[in-house]
């Protein structure tokens, strides 16, 4: 059916899925109502606000992070959707970036908050604000080695206690490393990593 039509009539205009996709562009979102609302609640703390693909990102300095997040909680963002980090390796303003993604049920508004974290710096824990951050912060600690100040129980969560290294750092090889953590040294002689045995039996 469709083939016949195409043969008879001139080609119809291209459908959106036949065109070359146009990637979204980042835009300044300073004037967005949600950002203005945050700005009113916590003036001068938002360093940068970007809208990308319809999602608003607030960039904030690490020292103002807790203040801003507390203000967001006060604005009704009762739900912490996600908390994670990105390793930017050689970035000047700080190697890592912690990313918070908060949600408000009243109008389904979502905001992303990012703060750069230099290596060795401590990020304030938000467990007090959102209990759900507990395991997420543990995971970020486990995977990136970012310390969270005032966390009730900051221990490794996905890897085992005694694991050396933080797997999601960019300098951690995908093949794994000799973690030096021999759980049963008499059964598995030291030298065998979790993934790639090096030389050992």
């Amino acid at each position, binding site marked *: *059916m*469709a083939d016949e039509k195409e043969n008879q009539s001139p080609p119809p205009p291209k*459908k*959106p*899925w*036949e*065109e*070359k*996709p*146009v*990637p*979204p562009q*980042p835009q300044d979102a300073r004037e967005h109502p949600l950002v203005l609302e945050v700005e009113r609640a916590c003036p001068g703390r938002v360093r940068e606000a970007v809208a*990308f*693909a319809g*999602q608003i*990102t607030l960039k904030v300095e690490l020292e103002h992070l807790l203040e801003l997040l507390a203000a967001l909680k006060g604005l009704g963002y*009762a*739900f*912490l*959707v*996600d908390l*994670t980090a*990105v*390793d930017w390796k050689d970035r000047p303003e700080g190697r890592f970036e912690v*990313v918070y*993604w908060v949600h408000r*049920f009243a109008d*389904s508004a*979502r905001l*992303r908050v990012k703060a750069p974290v230099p290596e060795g710096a401590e990020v304030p824990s938000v467990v007090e604000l*959102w*209990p*759900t951050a*507990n*395991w*997420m912060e543990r*995971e970020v600690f486990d*995977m990136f080695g970012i310390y969270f100040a005032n966390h009730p129980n900051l221990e*490794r*969560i*996905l*890897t*085992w206690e005694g694991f050396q290294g933080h*797997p*999601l750092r960019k300098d*951690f090889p*995908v093949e794994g490393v000799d973690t030096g953590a021999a759980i049963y040294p008499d059964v598995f002689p030291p030298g065998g990593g979790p993934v790639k045995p090096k030389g050992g039996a």
Partner: protein
Amino acid sequence: MADLQATLLGGEEMEVSFGPQHPATHGVLRLQLKVDGERIVNAKPIIGYLHRGTEKLFERETYPQCIPHTDRMDYTAAATNNQGFVGAVEKLMGITIPPRAAYIRMILAELQRLSSHIIWLATHALDIGAVTPFFYTFQEREKILDLFEEYCGARLTLNTMRIGGVPWDLPEGWTERCRRFVEELPKKIEDWERLLTNNRIWKARTVGVGVIDAEKAIAWGLTGPPLRGSGVQWDIRKVFPYDHYDEVEFDIPIGKNGDTYDRYLVRMEEMRQSVRIIRQCLDKLPDGPVMAWVPKVIRPPKGEVYFSVEGPKGELGYYIVSDGGVTPYRVRVRPPCFVNLQALPEMVKGHLVADVVAVIGTLDIVLGEIDR
């Protein structure tokens, strides 16, 4: 009184390691239980036994190569995992997928939701001691897997979606078979409910067990049926519709008390709603291509995007950071089970050992996704 009881009766606590090899922990979850007799004083989940570094692997693979890895996270719901990942990449690249592809995705995702809920019902009932529903439900799941197999060749790890659409059109006669299945399923769901819903023992075991109120559920970040069971009407499919969920009608069932029984009812109703969605999708299924035009090499622009779908277990989100290369710079998966499991100690405190099993079942966790 409680103190007196503790002094008189000893009150000595015992530590029980519940798992990782235990019939009721649905994989390799380990719970360190502190029990006073049979009463739970404290429960501490210990996870990570299934950690495979999926997020690390994503950074090494090209975008299309990442999709099979998503199958292996929540292995009971591969299609919804695929849907989330490809949706995120499409959002990042600005791809619009053809409507037929979107409808096929919705059908697959809802079938997957049914299959996941069926596994949940089977194991949940089995944990509480009802053996028979397991076999009744798995018979239906088998039919769903057959449909999957016919479509993409795989039954469990489907890898059935591509960036820009779906890889194949539906095989001939598939829609009729699918329709026959969804016409039959509501009757079967009624059968299962007849075994459980009004069963006195089932109610005794689930009503008032693992209660979590709406406020706490939000604070603990619960999503999916556990959140809806607490009375919060919240479904990504309605709030941030993806694919063409805004074109189909369905209700969001919610519970009242936030206990295990309510979550059970919510999931049972969700199955019916899924059937309803599939029916509408089959009715509306448009003609046309199933793949959008996408570049040969997927190379999204610099940027970051968070995209979430309503998985069977809750909000499944993908946060993708791209540096403009062929591999993602960072992929973060927001695992619903991981977040939901966190509320377990809160939910079982003060209950009996037998209730731990019920609560694990009602949270519907999959360790492949928790540990990634």
